[in-house]
């Protein structure tokens, strides 16, 4: 059994057909998995099932061999929108997961600042989310999800609303942080190049099922030039072609 295992799971919303159909998926510790698929194919639902936000109608989700019935404190989640609390400063937003339980101690405060530095937003520490750009807000959301040093991170198109250059910077920052903490990641995206650049595995979802799972054989250290590499582009093309054969 893997670090995270989805075992023949099904899910349907009330009054609708199955959104997720018989998905079996295994994620090993420290791996970075991307989930690609057209809009409405069930990616977000699958992510919520894996995180314990939704309970499957059939089948089971196991996390470290224990059945998942609700989200664990060892899990971080980043939504499509940054979901920051507008009335709290950037730093208070980052510390929210801790401050809901108790007053953050000096080590946690220091770690919060380290995350801000790694994400390049230390100068925005005392600002409010409405004063930040879309990219900066995404950075805050990622830093918040990492403050408790989760062993598993779920990200649902976190960079959908930012420009291409900022997106590349955010991808590098995310990789750096996840490698530093050895975090296991499931990342949803619509962007094939983003999926290949970030992950060790790219899964393709269609009609509520995982129809392909590609292994990405790129060096651990990613870099700008890698995006123009022959293998990188061939893999992107292969994934793109596999989309032509499936419908949402």
């Amino acid at each position: 059994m893997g670090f995270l295992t989805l075992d023949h799971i099904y899910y349907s919303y009330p009054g609708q057909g199955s959104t997720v159909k018989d998905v079996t998926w295994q994620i090993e510790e420290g791996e970075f998995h991307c989930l690609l698929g057209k809009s409405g194919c069930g990616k977000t639902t699958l992510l919520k099932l894996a995180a314990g936000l939704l309970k499957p109608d059939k089948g089971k989700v196991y996390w470290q061999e224990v059945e998942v019935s609700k989200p664990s404190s060892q899990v971080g989640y980043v939504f499509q929108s940054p979901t920051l609390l507008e009335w709290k400063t950037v730093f208070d937003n980052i510390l929210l997961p801790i401050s809901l339980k108790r007053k953050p101690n000096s080590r946690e405060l220091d770690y919060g600042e380290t995350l801000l530095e790694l994400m390049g937003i230390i100068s925005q520490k005392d600002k409010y989310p409405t004063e930040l750009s879309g990219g900066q807000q995404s950075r805050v959301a990622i830093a918040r999800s990492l403050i408790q040093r989760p062993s598993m991170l779920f990200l649902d198109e976190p960079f959908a609303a930012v420009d291409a250059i900022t997106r590349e910077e955010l991808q590098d920052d995310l990789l750096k942080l996840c490698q530093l903490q050895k975090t296991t990641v499931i990342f949803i995206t619509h962007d094939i190049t983003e999926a290949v650049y970030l992950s060790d595995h790219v899964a393709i979802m269609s009609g509520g099922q995982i129809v392909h799972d590609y292994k990405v054989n790129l060096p651990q250290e990613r870099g700008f030039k890698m995006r123009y590499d022959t293998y990188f582009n061939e893999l992107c093309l292969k994934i793109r072609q596999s989309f032509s054969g499936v419908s949402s």
Partner: protein
Amino acid sequence: MKKVEYYSMLLLLLMLIGWELIAGPMSELVLPAPAAVFIELWNGLSSGYFLPHILRTITEIVLGLSIGCTMGFILGVLMGEIDFLRKLLFPYVIASQAVPKLALAPLFILWFGFGMTSKVVITALICFFPLLENTLTAIQYTDPNKKDLFYILGATRLQTLIHLKIPAGLPAILAGFRVSVVLAVVGAVVGEFIGGSEGLGALIIASQGMMDTPLMFAVLILLTLMGMLLYLGVNLIEGLFLKTYMKGRNK
């Protein structure tokens, strides 16, 4: 002063001039000129004649507003949080609001007498609904992603309410409070119309009996100013006590 504020002042001046021109040829009984009204207003204020009436009306407004808004807020939160309670009580809340509350005023005078209590009850009843409705809507329609976030973070129901739903709903709740503040003046004055010898509403009825139209206008100006000051008071409260919660949103 900004340009638009100059124009606003200019508009007021034009309206006063227009009022003076229209009122000039008319009887003071029908439409007194602004000059006559302001003299009446000054005399009433400087002699202290208006003071007990102003204090009485303000007391009724503040008490009615506090009771009505507190009840509206608490019930709004409870109904927003507990589905069963919402389904159970909502038809009755709507029914209580469908009855013209001002038509209930004579009944409240009968039940609570001609003193302050009946006016406070009418005011509280009028102020109750806007806050209940806005609080209920704000609590119910909190961003589902933010609710999921709090669920993932292991927040309890009370923590989610205190740290997310209420702060996120503050703009809507404050909008309801502003409506309540303006309606509170209506409630207190109507209560005084129907029964009572003190308060600005009672003074309007008295001036009608004495056919003292300038006095009536002077009291109307006082009531308008009172309503506007209360509205500004809400903004002040917002600025002083809710600064932390509103800060990021105002930018």
